């Protein structure tokens, strides 16, 4: 179903730490590469391939990826230490997780680095939305300042009970949907952990009939 994509060569421009466990890398955008906000690339380094959603917009000069450093991971530990200027390859763009305009209100729901495609979509001008970002610790609410000032409603959700604060919703994103989202039909965009996508989908079926659901599952 997905169109065949080309392989591109690029180099690492910059590392940037986002939190204790996550970081951002900037890659030089090849001149012939184009994508839609919300899409992924498949990064190839040595013999390992991994898909990452783009944080940046098509108008930016660099491709920005938001990566969680998984200690036992095959690629993220390598990416966290490779030197600026290192050459990498990627294929893409991949996926169909792009914004679909509709008369229904849009609810974006992310867990962890699943916030990446939403950053690209919001930066590209889609701001009349509610955005939930679920993480364990407040340290992982990367892009919070940008998102809070850009979208109609930004709701950070912290699942660690020790992190409770008036600035955040204390609980999972699905608990927020259950308790605080008014009944109705919405367009839900779900990105991140498979467990969140499953729980949110079953909740939407039950509580928000007539809604549309678009998903991007990370792991």
């Amino acid at each position, binding site marked *: 179903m997905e169109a065949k994509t080309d392989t591109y060569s690029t180099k690492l421009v910059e590392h940037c730490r986002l939190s204790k466990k996550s970081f951002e890398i900037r890659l030089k955008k090849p001149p012939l590469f184009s994508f839609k906000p919300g899409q992924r690339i498949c990064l190839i380094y040595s013999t390992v391939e991994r898909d990452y959603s783009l944080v940046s917009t098509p108008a930016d000069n660099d491709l920005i990826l938001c990566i969680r450093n998984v200690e036992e991971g095959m690629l993220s530990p390598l990416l966290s230490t490779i030197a600026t200027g290192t050459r990498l390859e990627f294929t893409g763009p991949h996926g*169909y997780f792009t914004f679909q*305009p509709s008369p229904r209100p849009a609810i974006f729901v992310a867990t962890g680095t699943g916030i990446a495609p939403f950053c690209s979509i919001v930066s590209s001008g889609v701001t009349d939305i509610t955005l939930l970002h679920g993480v364990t610790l407040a340290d992982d609410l990367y892009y919070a300042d940008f998102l809070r000032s850009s979208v109609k409603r930004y709701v950070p959700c912290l699942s660690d009970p020790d992190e409770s604060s008036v600035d955040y919703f204390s609980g999972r994103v699905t608990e927020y949907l259950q308790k605080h989202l008014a009944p109705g039909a919405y367009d839900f965009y779900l990105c991140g952990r*498979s467990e969140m996508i*499953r729980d949110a989908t079953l909740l*939407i*079926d039950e509580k928000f009939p007539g809604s*549309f659901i678009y998903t991007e*599952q990370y792991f």
Partner: protein
Amino acid sequence: MKIYTGTGDRGKTSLFSGERVSKASERIKAYGDLDELNSIIGALVAALPPKYTNLVDELEHIQSNLFEISAILATTPDSPSMNQLRSFSRKEFDALEKAIDARQNELTELKGFILPGGHMTAAWSHIARTVCRRTERHMVSFLVESIQGEIPDQYRNAQIYLNRLSDYFFVIARYCNHLSGTTEKLWKK
């Protein structure tokens, strides 16, 4: 990434265009049949001697087309998601008609009803033919039940393609028997 999602545990599934629908709907039956048909073509390809590369290429192109038809069936016609899909044009069923005619020219004239079977590859092709017919029936049921007014080109072209495809598999079944030197058995009343 996990292969299982659990989002369909209560009998619903998501369309490519975002809607949640019952797995009992005619639409889901139709693209379930497409999946079955595609797998049967895979078995046919696996059973073919490797030297028939042209036929293998032709069958694998059909498998790709069936993926595209599945995506079309999983998308409501007036949704923005439909714009993300390649247009399924009549050139695909024109190509099938040419393939049917080309194979047919190599075969002896049909003298009556033949029993489905013969060589293993012919038997798989007959199964593909019958599952293709069922797929088309479910697709027509879906179109009749769900589409008010004129049927969108994407759906109509896909249905015509399936109609030609079952004829194609009839000819390919005969062609496989021909290639393998297997005598066709005629129906005896």
